[in-house]
């Protein structure tokens, strides 16, 4: 029977980040991927923040197939018939090193896998892991394609559903409350048109988030990321909220309605949709993170629930790469002592706690409750839209005083509610 030091399940960012860190350290590492090639089962909104992980993978960034560095960050509140956009740009976003890049996972993951393979690590694609091998309460390998493959340690990087974590007994159930689904089209468009429409030059990129009517007032939103020669356009829908509202439109129809909004249609006009993708997103934050390790097993990336939405930024890929890195460090340490028990592998959690990964999750532990406030998705976009409509309106007769105009839309009760929401926001 084949025996490896490490079996990594899933060649996404966590798995590849782990494999990359382990390469050249004298360990027998096998990476298993169920898709035709790394990235073939992966979809993301598409933006990677480099700063927190730059030094964990110092050689990667010069050559990585990243799309555009983001110099425009915007949030748009979409009411039913109007919208308000806030755009932030600054010299700091144009200076190198750039803090974030749009990317496309099939391209990026495939490239990262090549770097891993060049360093001598074995990667097998088209192999689905069906189960784990247990011996005396210790994970000792996996069952894949009918074969039993043994390893000192298994690293579950098999994504947000992580059946490996489930089969290893590290995860019990998935609650709809903690998940959203992202639906995305990649739309190709001439780079000159992208630059014109998004006010960009050269390889500059834009990131736009939309909140409000897109999800019929429920938890979720829309996004756009500009790539080199395409636009990633998507929506995110909270599963619990939307799945229980039987008056809501079906998800594909919500997507199309968003796409047909004037604010969006103008940006993608003349473009060609070349892919339609969907992916589950963990939204539970710190409180939804369960076990991160067990006897002979570590969980990394989405499999560990490492995705964090704090409203202005929605992140997962840095946490995947970093958790892969720290899983690798844990394995290297365990290898020295030959001890792969849960006690020895608990180092992984310590490393994550000492790093930005769990520090971020801990400091933003209140974020899921705050950003899912239903008022952000219906009440505020409509109210602010109404106020702006009246403020900008010049009627046939005399114009009402500005403060009086605003107060028409803001009763004492509204303002009290606003203060209460503001107080909740101060928790993040």
């Amino acid at each position, binding site marked *: 029977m084949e025996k490896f030091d490490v079996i990594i399940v899933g060649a996404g960012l966590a798995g590849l980040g782990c494999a990359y860190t382990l390469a050249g350290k004298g360990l027998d590492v096998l990476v298993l991927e*169920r*898709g*035709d*090639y790394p*990235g*073939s*089962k*992966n*979809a*993301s909104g598409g933006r990677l923040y480099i700063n927190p992980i730059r030094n964990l993978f110092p050689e990667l960034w010069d050559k990585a197939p990243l799309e555009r560095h983001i110099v425009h960050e915007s949030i748009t509140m979409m009411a039913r018939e109007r919208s308000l956009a806030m755009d932030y740009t600054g010299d700091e976003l144009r200076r190198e090193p750039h803090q974030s890049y749009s990317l*496309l*996972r*099939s*391209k*990026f*993951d495939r490239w990262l896998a090549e770097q891993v393979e060049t360093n001598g690590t074995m990667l097998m*694609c*088209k*192999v*689905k892991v069906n189960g784990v091998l247990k011996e005396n309460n210790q994970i000792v390998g996996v069952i*894949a*394609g009918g074969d039993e493959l043994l390893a000192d340690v298994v690293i579950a990087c098999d994504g*947000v*559903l992580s*059946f490996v974590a489930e089969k290893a007994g590290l995860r019990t159930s*998935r609650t*709809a409350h903690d*998940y959203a*689904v992202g*639906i995305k*089209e*990649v739309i190709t468009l001439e780079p000159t048109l992208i630059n014109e429409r998004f006010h960009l030059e050269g390889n500059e990129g834009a990131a736009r988030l939309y909140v409000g009517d897109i999800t019929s007032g429920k938890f979720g939103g829309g996004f756009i990321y500009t790539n080199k020669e*395409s636009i990633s356009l998507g929506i995110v*829908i909270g*599963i619990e909220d*939307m*799945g*229980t*509202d*039987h008056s*809501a439109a*079906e*998800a*594909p*129809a919500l*997507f*199309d309605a968003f796409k047909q909004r004037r604010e969006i249609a103008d940006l993608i006009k003349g473009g060609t*949709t*070349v*892919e*339609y*993708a*969907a*992916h*589950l997103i963990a939204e539970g934050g710190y409180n939804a993170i369960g076990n991160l390790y067990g006897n002979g097993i570590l969980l990394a990336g989405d499999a560990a629930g490492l995705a964090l939405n704090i409203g202005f930024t929605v992140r997962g890929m840095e946490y995947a790469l970093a958790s892969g890195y720290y899983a690798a460090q844990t394995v290297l340490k365990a290898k020295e002592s030959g001890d792969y028990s849960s006690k020895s592998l608990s180092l992984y959690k310590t490393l994550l706690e000492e790093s930005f990964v769990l520090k971020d999750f801990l400091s933003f532990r209140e974020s899921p409750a705050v950003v899912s406030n239903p008022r952000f998705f219906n009440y505020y976009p409509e109210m602010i839209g109404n106020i702006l409509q009246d403020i900008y309106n010049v009627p046939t007769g005399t114009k009402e005083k500005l403060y009086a105009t605003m107060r028409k839309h803001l009763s004492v009760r509204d303002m009290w509610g606003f203060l209460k929401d503001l107080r909740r926001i101060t928790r993040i």
Partner: protein
Amino acid sequence: MSENSALKAKLGIDVFKPGKVAHIKIKPGREKDARLQAAILLCPAGLYRANEKGEVTLTTDGCLECGTCLVACGIEVLDWNYPEGGTGVQYRYG
């Protein structure tokens, strides 16, 4: 184009490699389970449909393997697996 055929056309752009068996099944006797309504609403590929008898049917051709239905309906209702290695959707952009 009707909504459904527009969605089919969109799915037609994606690359799918056929597998031998359906990787997701509604468990026998659960076709009328109320939880399946969430799958009808949420499935990005529109693969869940209710018939005149109130039973929900599922076709897995065009499945994007996101897992939304599994999270929305749970394992009591669905027998949910990823397709076999090397089959199913193969994203070229991601």
